[in-house]
């Protein structure tokens, strides 16, 4: 049998002669490994997945650098870092004033200012814009997208300021993730996907900051759930939760578990959702983010009720009513009243349930909260169907007319409500139809 090495093709020889010694050494390390990662070009991937370190891998054998050499490097790095740290602390002080100044202009002018004035190319200003965008997501979707667009613009310009490029890539990635989130809330789902894709690419060139990665994964998970890509969503959530746990960030771990639980509930995995919500409640730091803790309790009660565990839902409600009622946000209090109505309907206290649902419904209407108004109307109609109160159901259907004419719900939700109205008119309403309408409306909410 001929020795293949004696017939080395010309290509192999020429290619070898063109590559540097370093490159060839590196290739030898990669391709002399017995098997495994290098076979598919995934050096270190297996170690990365479970957080373990590579043991004495042949791919990194050769002249080894001792730990004492690394110690010397650590000693050299430290003094420069302290200087940079103080410089950044000063920048942070100016961010509030810059934010106010920038937002005092129309959006087009803001962009011009960022492009033309170095003052606005500031890391803390970029972060402040991103934080503001999160609030804007609940208030004004267009504003949220605008704020994130400004943050992206600043982050792109930060590349010219001398800040180390992996750090800048991290902030650029974060800006694109927030932009993706704002676009998702604005229902521009294709653009949201693209923004998240860009964020993922930038993170690959970033510092490796695990918390940045976990934040990105959590936001991406919500986006995937909005597009009904639940498997992908849950995979991102689980990776994010592993990172938070590994970094000892138990509050954020609990926060992400809660988000995962809500989406599991939406995907019909109610029992798993309940289990995770219980766990999240043991992890969330109430002092750090009271609203999150309230949301976790309310979601737990809601899922218990959905699962038919009415008594337990009722007990949780009783136990936490005082705390939940102490929220200073009027809309949260209305949601609590709505939840009370649902739980009491479940436990058979129909009069109290009706009272709570009617109260919540009226208040949502007054506040112009169209989605909530439509949803409580459905819950109330379920109660009336069970009681055979056809006239009241027709009345509820009639009162939905302004909702179907408003532009606040998307076509899919309006179509479901119109179907409900027609069925009510014809006295052909059923519990199944109401459940389908609720399901269509909930889908809209998860898309937000």
């Amino acid at each position, binding site marked *: 049998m001929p020795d*293949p090495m004696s017939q080395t093709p010309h290509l192999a020889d020429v*290619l070898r002669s063109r590559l540097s010694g370093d490159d060839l050494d590196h290739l030898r390390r990669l391709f002399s490994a017995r098997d495994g990662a*290098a076979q*598919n070009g995934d050096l270190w991937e297996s170690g990365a997945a479970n957080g373990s370190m590579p043991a004495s891998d042949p791919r990194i054998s050769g002249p080894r650098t001792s730990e004492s050499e690394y110690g010397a490097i650590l000693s050299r790095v430290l003094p420069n870092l302290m200087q940079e740290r103080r410089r950044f602390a000063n920048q942070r002080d100016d961010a509030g004033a810059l934010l106010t100044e920038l937002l005092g202009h129309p959006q087009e002018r803001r962009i011009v200012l960022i492009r033309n004035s170095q003052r606005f190319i500031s890391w803390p200003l970029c972060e402040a814009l991103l934080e503001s965008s999160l609030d804007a997501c609940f208030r004004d979707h267009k504003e949220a997208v605008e704020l994130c667009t400004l943050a992206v613009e600043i982050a792109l310009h930060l590349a010219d300021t001398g800040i180390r490029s992996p750090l800048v890539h991290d902030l650029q990635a974060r800006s694109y993730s927030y932009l993706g989130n704002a676009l998702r809330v604005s229902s521009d789902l294709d653009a949201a996907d693209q923004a998240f894709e860009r964020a993922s*690419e930038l993170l690959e060139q970033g510092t490796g900051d695990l918390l940045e990665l976990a934040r990105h994964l959590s936001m991406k998970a919500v986006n995937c759930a909005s597009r009904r890509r639940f498997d992908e969503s849950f995979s991102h959530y689980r990776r994010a939760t592993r990172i938070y746990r590994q970094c000892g960030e138990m509050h954020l771990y609990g926060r992400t578990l809660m988000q995962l639980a809500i989406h599991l509930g939406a995907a019909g995995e109610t029992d798993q959702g309940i289990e995770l919500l219980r766990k999240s409640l043991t992890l969330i730091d109430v002092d750090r983010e009271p609203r999150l803790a309230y949301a976790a309790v309310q979601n737990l009660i809601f899922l218990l009720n959905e699962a038919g565990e009415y008594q337990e839902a009722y007990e949780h409600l009783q136990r936490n009513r005082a705390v939940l009622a102490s929220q200073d946000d009027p809309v949260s209090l209305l949601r609590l009243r709505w939840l009370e109505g649902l739980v009491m309907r479940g436990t058979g206290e129909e009069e109290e349930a009706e009272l709570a649902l009617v109260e919540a419904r009226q208040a949502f209407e007054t506040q112009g909260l169209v989605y909530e108004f439509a949803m409580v109307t459905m819950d109330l109609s379920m109660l009336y169907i069970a009681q055979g109160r056809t006239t009241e159901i027709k009345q509820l259907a009639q009162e939905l007319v302004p909702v179907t004419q408003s532009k606040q719900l998307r076509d899919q939700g309006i179509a479901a409500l119109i179907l409900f109205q027609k069925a009510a008119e014809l006295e052909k309403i059923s519990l199944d139809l109401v459940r389908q309408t609720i399901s269509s409306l909930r889908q809209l909410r998860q898309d937000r």
Partner: protein
Amino acid sequence: MNAPENARSDEGFEALLRRIRPTLKQILGRYQIPPTDAEDVLQDTFMTLFYKWDEVQKPEAWLVGTLRRRCIMYWRSRRSRLYDTVDETILELVADSDQPSQEQATLRKDLERSVSNLRPKCRAILRMRYSLGLKPAEIAAELGYAQSSVRKVANRCLAALIRELTAVGFLKESSNA
């Protein structure tokens, strides 16, 4: 003791570094980051901690996890650059020309022989790249890959090609090396 509060001062930060120094050295040693690049890797990691200070609750756990991931990314990036170099070199060697020289014809024949041993997917990708000179984005469009994943797939195929070439002596040590 609240770690971030304690470490907020320079003294606190230095104390944190003293505590964690052996672990950091150990991580760099295990991943064998070349000394010329280890300084960059460390600076990136510490600067990140400064910039994101307000969010990091447990700096020690964060530093260990992030430095480890940074080392993984370092090698991933080096590998990616290496593949780019090999890819560009092959492209230069077999670049299309109206009248290929005898040398170029031989190189193309060798390349085709190695490529023909690969899986159909890799054959298609590498022929598009080296015979037709298509860019990754064009290959993605032709074969229906997402732009984001074509690079990964192409690198896997290039790795398969390098293995083919390695089997016939590409990576042998030269006698005067």
